[in-house]
C-alpha cells in the first residue's frame, strides 16, 4: 500500500513549514487494507515533520472542498491541538446509491472525532446526490434497515429486563470485572438449566399431566383390553402386580403423627414419603402409550420420549458449552502467546474503568502492583531456573515427585474413606431400619443416612488446605500453582462423587439366583432403584444448598463480625475477619451442583427445575458473601482467563457424568416395579426395539452406525482432521513471524521516507528564503497541478 502513495510537497511558506498532502490512490475502491471490518474504510495517515508523526498546519484552515479528480478524497479534517488528524473517506461525488449511503451512515459512529464533526459528516452524506435504488435492491435495502432497527430495539428491551442487572453493576463497580465473570457464569448456568427444564417439561411432564393411559390391571389371566389400548406393551402381568404392590407399600408406610412437621421437612429434603411417587422421580412415570382423552388417535409414546429427550438434552447442553468454551479458549490463548503480551495485557487492560469506589480503586492498584511483581518474579525465576546447577535440579525434581506422591496418597485415602463410610452406613441402615422402635435407633438412622455426605463435606474442607500447603514446596510459578491446585481439587470433588455412585451401584446388585418373575429378590434391594438413585442425588442437591447457606450465614458472617467489630484493629481480629472471596473454590461449588443435576436428570426429571431455583438462591447467597463478608481480594482475576477456566471445568465434569449415565442406560436392568422401562432387559433395548420396527433402510443405516466397520474409519478420519488443523495452525504461526519481520522492514522504509521528507523541507525552506516576493503568502487550499510540485519517491 505504501508504495503507491506519493506524498507530494505542494507549497511551502516563508515563515512556516506547511506541508500539504495530496494522495492519489490508483486502485479504484476505497483503498482500505488495514482492517477487514467495514467500520473504517478510509486511510489514516499521520505525519510529523520532525520525522515522527504529524503534519502541522495553521489552526484556522479547514479543508472541505472535494477535488473531483482523485478517488480518495480529503473530506474533512479535525483539530487536535495544533496537529491535524486526516481522515480520508471515499469520494462522494460519483453518485453513490442509497445502500452505500445507508451503510456509511451506520459507520459514522465509528469515527474517532467529536460529535460536532460527525453531525456535519452526516449532513454531508445525507445531502450528497444519491442514486435511487429500485426494485429488488430497494426491497432488500428496506428489509436490512428494518432488521437492524428491530435488532437494536430488541436489544434495548432485553437490557431493560436483564436479570440481576443492578447487582452485577454493583459488583463491577466495587470489585472489578474478574468477579463479575463469576456471577455471569452463574447466570449462564441458570439459562442453561432453564432451557433443559423447558425441554423436559414440554416433552415429558406436560404429556404426563394432560394425557391419559389405561390402568395397570393385575388380573393374572387376561390381557388388558380397554378401548384405549390396542397397541399396549406386551409384558408379563406379573410386573403389573409388582407395580401394584410397590404402590401399596408406598401409600401404607407408617406415618408418625407426633412429629408431623419434622417428618414433612425430612421428606421434603430426602424426597421420600409422598414425594417418592410424584412427578419428581422416575418411578411415577408409566410404561404406556399416552393418548388424548377426547381423541384417542393421538398417541404419544412416553417411554421413547423419555429416553430420547434426555439424550437430546445432554447433546444440546454439550454443544452450548463447547461453543462458550471455544470462545473463552480463543481469548485466553491469545493472551498467553508470550510473556510480553502478558505485560501489555496487564498494563493496558489491567485497570477496570468501571470502578466507582475509592477502596476498590486502591485495592485494584495493589492487585496490579502484586501482579507486576509476580511477573517480574517469574522473570527472575526463569533466569534463575536456567542457572540452576544439576544438583539443585535433581533435588527439586525429587521434591516434586515426593509431593505428587503425597498428594496421590491423600486423594486415595479420602476416596477409600468415602467408600467405606458409604458401605458402612448402608449396611447399618438396613439393620437399624428393621428395628426402628426405640428412640436411639431413630437417631442412629438419621446419623447413618447423613454419614457419607458428612464425610464428603469434611474432606472437601480439609484437603484443599493441605494441597495449598503442599504445593508451596514445589517451587512453581504462581500461575502454575493456581492451575495445579485447581486440578487437584477438581479431582477430589469429582472423584468423591464417583465413589458415591459406585457405592450406590453396589447396593443394587444383580443377585445370583433371582427368578425373573419376582418383583424384588432376596437381596432386598429397593423396590425401585432408579427412584432411590434419584432420591440420593436430590438429597445431595438440597444438602449442598443448605451447607452453602450455613457456611455463609453461620460461619463467615460471625467470623467477620468478630474479627472486624469486636477485635477491631488487632492482628488476630484481622486474621479472623479478613475472608477473601476465593473464586476457584466458589466455582467448584457451582460446578459440583451442576454435576449433580446432570447425573440425576435421568432419574428425576424435575431436578433441573430444582437446580434452577437453587441457582437463584445460590446467586444471592454468594452475592451476600461477596458484598458483606469478604474483604477485597488482593489477587487479580482476569476476565478472559476466568471465562475459559470456568467453562473448561464444567466441560470436564460433564464428560465425567456422561459415563455413569451412559452405563446405567446401556447395561443395568431396570426395576420391575416402576418406571417407563420396566420389564425390559436394559433401558437401551427400548431404542433397539424402535429401530427394529422402523423401515428397512433406516434400520440398516442405524445398525451400521453401531458396528466397528463404521467406528474405525470414523476414528481414523477424525485423527487425520485433527492433524490437518494442527499443521495449518503451525504454518500460520510461521507466517505470523514472517509478517512480523516484514513489518519491521516496512517500518525502516517509513523512517527513511520521513527523513527524506525532512531533508526536502529543509532544502525548499532555504530556497524559499531566497525568492521572497515571488511567492504568495497565503497557501491556497488543495491546489491541483501547481507548478511548485515536487515529488518524493521512495
Amino acid at each position, binding site marked *: 500500500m505504501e508504495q503507491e502513495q506519493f506524498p507530494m510537497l505542494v507549497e511551502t511558506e516563508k515563515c512556516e513549514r506547511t506541508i500539504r498532502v495530496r494522495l492519489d490512490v490508483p486502485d479504484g475502491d476505497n483503498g482500505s487494507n488495514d482492517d477487514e471490518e467495514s467500520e473504517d474504510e478510509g486511510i489514516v495517515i499521520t505525519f510529523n515533520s520532525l520525522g515522527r508523526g504529524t503534519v502541522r498546519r495553521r489552526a484556522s484552515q479547514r479543508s472541505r472542498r472535494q477535488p473531483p479528480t482523485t478517488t480518495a478524497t480529503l473530506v474533512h479534517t479535525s483539530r487536535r491541538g495544533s496537529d491535524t488528524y486526516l481522515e480520508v473517506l471515499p469520494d462522494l461525488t460519483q453518485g453513490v446509491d442509497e445502500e452505500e449511503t445507508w451503510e456509511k451512515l451506520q459507520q459514522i459512529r465509528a469515527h474517532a472525532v467529536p460529535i460536532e464533526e460527525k453531525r456535519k459528516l452526516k449532513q454531508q452524506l445525507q445531502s450528497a446526490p444519491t442514486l435511487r435504488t429500485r426494485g429488488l435492491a430497494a426491497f432488500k435495502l428496506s428489509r436490512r434497515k428494518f432488521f437492524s432497527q428491530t435488532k437494536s430495539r430488541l436489544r434495548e428491551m432485553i437490557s431493560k429486563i436483564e436479570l440481576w442487572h443492578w447487582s452485577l453493576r454493583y459488583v463491577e463497580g466495587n470489585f472489578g470485572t474478574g468477579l463479575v465473570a463469576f456471577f455471569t457464569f452463574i447466570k449462564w448456568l441458570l439459562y442453561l438449566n432453564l432451557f433443559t427444564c423447558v425441554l423436559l417439561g414440554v416433552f415429558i411432564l406436560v404429556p404426563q399431566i394432560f394425557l391419559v393411559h389405561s390402568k395397570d390391571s393385575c388380573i393374572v389371566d387376561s390381557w388388558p383390553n380397554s378401548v384405549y389400548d390396542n397397541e399396549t406393551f406386551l409384558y408379563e402381568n406379573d410386573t403389573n402386580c409388582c407395580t401394584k404392590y410397590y404402590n401399596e407399600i408406598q401409600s401404607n408406610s407408617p406415618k408418625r403423627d407426633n412429629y408431623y412437621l419434622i417428618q414433612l421437612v425430612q421428606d421434603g429434603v430426602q424426597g421420600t414419603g409422598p414425594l417418592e411417587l410424584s412427578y419428581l422421580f422416575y418411578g411415577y412415570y408409566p410404561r404406556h402409550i399416552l393418548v388424548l382423552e377426547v381423541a384417542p388417535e393421538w398417541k404419544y409414546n412416553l417411554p421413547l420420549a423419555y429416553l430420547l429427550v434426555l439424550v437430546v438434552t445432554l447433546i444440546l447442553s454439550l454443544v452450548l458449552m463447547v461453543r462458550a468454551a471455544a470462545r473463552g479458549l480463543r481469548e485466553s490463548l491469545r493472551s498467553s502467546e508470550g510473556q510480553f503480551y502478558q505485560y501489555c*495485557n496487564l498494563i493496558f487492560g489491567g485497570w477496570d*474503568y468501571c470502578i466507582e469506589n475509592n477502596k476498590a480503586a486502591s485495592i485494584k492498584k*495493589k492487585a496490579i*502492583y502484586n501482579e507486576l511483581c509476580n511477573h517480574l518474579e517469574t522473570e527472575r525465576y526463569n533466569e534463575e531456573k536456567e542457572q540452576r546447577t544439576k544438583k539443585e535440579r535433581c533435588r527439586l525434581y525429587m521434591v516434586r515427585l515426593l509431593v505428587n506422591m503425597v498428594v496421590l496418597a491423600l486423594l486415595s485415602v479420602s476416596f477409600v474413606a468415602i467408600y467405606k463410610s458409604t458401605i458402612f452406613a448402608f449396611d447399618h441402615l438396613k439393620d437399624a431400619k428393621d428395628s426402628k422402635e426405640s428412640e436411639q435407633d431413630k437417631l442412629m438412622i438419621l446419623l447413618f443416612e447423613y454419614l457419607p455426605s458428612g464425610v464428603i463435606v469434611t474432606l472437601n474442607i480439609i484437603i484443599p488446605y493441605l494441597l495449598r500447603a503442599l504445593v508451596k514446596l514445589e517451587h512453581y510459578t504462581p500461575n502454575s500453582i493456581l492451575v495445579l491446585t485447581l486440578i487437584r481439587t477438581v479431582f477430589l470433588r469429582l472423584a468423591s462423587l464417583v465413589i458415591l455412585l459406585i457405592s450406590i451401584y453396589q447396593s443394587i446388585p444383580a443377585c445370583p439366583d433371582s427368578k425373573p418373575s419376582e418383583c424384588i429378590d432376596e437381596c432386598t434391594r429397593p423396590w425401585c432403584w432408579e427412584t432411590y438413585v434419584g432420591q440420593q442425588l436430590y438429597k445431595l442437591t438440597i444438602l449442598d444448598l443448605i451447607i452453602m447457606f450455613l457456611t455463609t450465614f453461620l460461619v463467615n458472617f460471625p467470623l467477620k463480625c468478630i474479627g472486624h467489630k469486636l477485635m477491631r484493629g488487632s492482628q488476630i481480629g484481622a486474621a479472623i475477619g479478613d475472608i477473601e472471596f476465593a473464586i476457584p473454590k466458589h466455582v467448584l461449588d457451582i460446578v459440583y451442583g451442576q454435576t449433580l443435576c446432570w447425573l440425576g436428570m435421568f432419574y428425576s426429571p424435575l431436578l433441573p427445575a430444582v437446580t434452577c431455583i437453587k441457582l437463584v438462591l445460590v446467586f444471592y447467597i454468594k452475592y451476600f458473601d461477596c458484598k458483606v463478608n469478604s474483604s477485597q481480594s488482593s489477587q487479580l482475576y482476569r476476565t478472559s482467563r476466568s471465562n475459559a477456566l470456568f467453562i473448561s471445568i464444567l466441560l470436564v465434569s460433564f464428560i465425567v457424568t456422561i459415563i455413569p449415565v451412559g452405563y446405567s442406560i446401556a447395561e443395568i436392568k431396570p426395576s420391575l416395579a416402576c418406571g417407563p422401562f420396566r420389564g425390559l432387559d436394559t433401558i437401551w433395548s427400548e431404542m433397539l426395539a424402535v429401530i427394529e420396527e422402523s423401515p428397512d433402510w433406516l434400520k440398516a443405516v442405524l445398525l451400521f452406525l453401531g458396528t466397528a466397520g463404521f467406528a474405525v474409519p470414523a476414528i481414523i478420519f477424525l485423527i487425520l482432521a485433527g492433524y490437518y488443523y494442527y499443521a495449518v495452525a503451525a504454518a500460520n504461526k510461521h507466517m505470523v513471524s514472517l509478517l512480523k519481520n516484514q513489518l519491521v522492514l516496512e517500518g525502516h522504509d517509513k523512517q527513511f521516507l520521513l527523513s527524506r521528507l525532512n531533508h526536502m523541507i529543509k532544502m525548499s525552506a532555504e530556497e524559499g528564503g531566497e525568492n521572497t516576493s515571488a511567492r504568495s503568502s497565503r497557501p491556497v487550499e488543495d491546489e491541483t497541478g501547481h507548478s511548485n510540485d515536487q515529488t518524493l519517491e521512495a
Partner: protein
Amino acid sequence: MGNKNTTFTEEELEDYEDLTYLTRREILVAWGKWKGLVGGQGEPDRVTRYPEEDVQKLPELQHNPFRERITRVFSSLKDSRMSFEDFLDLLSVMSSKAPLQLKAHYAFHIFDYNEDQVLDTEDLEVVVERLTGDHALLPEEKSKLVEKLLEDTDLDGGGISEEEFKHLLTKCPDFTHSFRFSV
C-alpha cells in the same frame, strides 16, 4: 424514563442515537447524570462548556488514575472544558458496543502523556506509576519493565505508534473487557 422527557426533541434523540453507540434510554440517563454533575447553578443546557473538574466527579471517573487525560482527550476544543456532547462522546466510546479500533484510538491518546503521538519511555513510566498508585515499584524495576515492554512491542524503534498500539491491543483480550463502563 423514556416517554416523558422534555429536553430533547425526537429528532435530536435520533440524531444522537445515530452518531453514538448509546441507546435512547442511555442518552436520557446520561442527561440526568450530566445535570447532576454540573447543574450547580440553574438548569444546564447542552452547549455550555463546563470545567473538567465537574465532570471528573462522575463516580466512574473519580477514582480512575487517568481521569485528567480522559477529560482532556474527549474535550473537543481542548480548553479543559467539556460540553454535554463531549460527555456523550465519552460514554459512546466507553460503551460495550464500541469497536476495538475506536477504543484503541482513544486509549492511545489517553496514555500519551506528552502528546507527541508516540508512546515512549516517559509516557509508559507515568502510566505504570499511575497504575500502581501508592505501592510504587522500585525505579530500576520500573525502567526494566518499560524497557521490556518497548523492546517486544515496538517494531521499528522510536516508540509505539498508534498503528502498533492498535495491533498490540488485538493481542490483549482483557482490554475490551476492562475499557468500558455504562451509565
